[in-house]
């Protein structure tokens, strides 16, 4: 087939679709015609012809929080998610643990404890090496999710360092900040501070709150005015929450 044999209309629309000048309705029309191998090949040929133009577009580092978001999403949609959800969760943990200096030994030991417990749930007596690890205060983690929604923060508290490592999986909001709260058994939220949304970061936990974060309460994140809640209690909508659990 030579160029002159092709439907002019087809060639035109394929070129226009690849170039990106069609409006929404015309794009839908073009996409409905991609089922035709001839039209699809025409579109692909145009895409290949034009692709070198993208070399002229300046690269821009993607926002740092994006990969953790993608990583969390693919763990939810993977065909293997049903059987490997736990390992997916641990791989997420491994991601930020691995990228943080100084936590390696404790983190690895904590994972070992979990794996031993998970694989032998009915075995009360752990091996000696594991027992030694359990003498350390346990790590505490919380996965904070929107109601019936995706995970939007991962918080890990390291009692040895008395710090939390917070991984935001959602973008910052204009003119608002995300503030983290711990809600212990008495039900009164205590502020742990405003979360930097650009990247995973470590935060010191004030002494009076360390026992609460290391306990059995809940963490929650609310949207607050710039600078954080003016009252010391949450004033905005709660965007995510999740229980603390020792690992």
């Amino acid at each position: 087939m030579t160029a002159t044999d092709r439907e002019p209309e087809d060639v035109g629309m394929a070129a226009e679709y690849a170039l990106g000048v069609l409006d929404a309705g015309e794009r839908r029309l073009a996409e409905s015609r991609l089922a035709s191998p001839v039209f699809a090949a025409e579109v692909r040929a145009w895409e290949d012809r034009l692709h070198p133009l993208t070399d002229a577009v300046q690269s821009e580092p993607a926002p740092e929080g994006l990969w953790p978001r993608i990583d969390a999403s693919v763990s939810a949609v993977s065909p293997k998610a049903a059987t490997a959800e736990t390992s997916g969760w641990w791989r997420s943990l491994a991601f930020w643990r691995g990228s943080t200096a100084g936590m390696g030994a404790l983190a690895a030991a904590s994972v070992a404890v979990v794996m031993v417990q998970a694989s032998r749930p009915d075995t009360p007596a752990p091996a000696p090496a594991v027992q030694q690890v359990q003498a350390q205060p346990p790590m505490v983690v919380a996965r904070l999710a929107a109601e019936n929604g995706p995970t939007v923060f991962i918080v890990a508290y390291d009692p040895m360092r008395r710090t939390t490592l917070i991984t935001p999986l959602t973008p910052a909001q204009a003119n608002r900040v995300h503030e983290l709260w711990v809600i212990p058994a008495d039900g009164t939220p205590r502020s742990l501070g405003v979360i930097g949304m650009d990247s995973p970061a470590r935060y010191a936990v004030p002494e009076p709150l360390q026992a609460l974060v290391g306990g059995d309460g809940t963490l929650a994140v609310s949207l607050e005015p710039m600078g954080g809640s003016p009252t010391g209690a949450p004033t905005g909508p709660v965007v995510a929450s999740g229980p603390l659990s020792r690992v």
Partner: protein
Amino acid sequence: MPSSGEPFLKPRFVSPEVSAPLEPLLRRVAEGDRDALESIYRHTSAKLFGVCLRILKDRNEAEDVLHEVYVSLWRRARSYDEAQGRAVAWLTTVARNRAIDRLRSRAASRETATVEGMEFADESPSAFAHMQAAQERTALERCLAELDERSRQAIRTAFFEGVTYEQLAARWDVPLGTMKSWIRRGMIRLRGCLET
């Protein structure tokens, strides 16, 4: 071991796009290998983010598009047909199409409000400093240079910004039919030139 005052983590994904063969990684992604997906992300996300940002002119929206693109790559890597072409071109095209779809779904008022006042990299040939497909780029540039000025400018703007015929016509202040004829004529000449 310090217990406070930790600095923010250093960015992990600032490396520039690298011309790595993506096909083997795509095969691994199709098998459910998340490390392979991360490798692809590291190699391609800066370019894809640049392309989407150029079209959407909004970092949050460009980020959302990239999120969709890589998740959909994860789900659909099996459907990628190596015979169809280079993986980078394929991935860029997917991202660009999604960005254009998103642009189309915006309210018209918002579009015109954000189009102006944004400064982006020079799209003239002098900006072609870091390119991977030198020969093809040269051929495309040579053929674009043969077009008349208006067709060339309209085609470039359409490609980089993903704007419609109507918006181009408004920007050049010419009738819609005139703009369509500039672009269609230019595209036909472009194809003829590239096929010789």
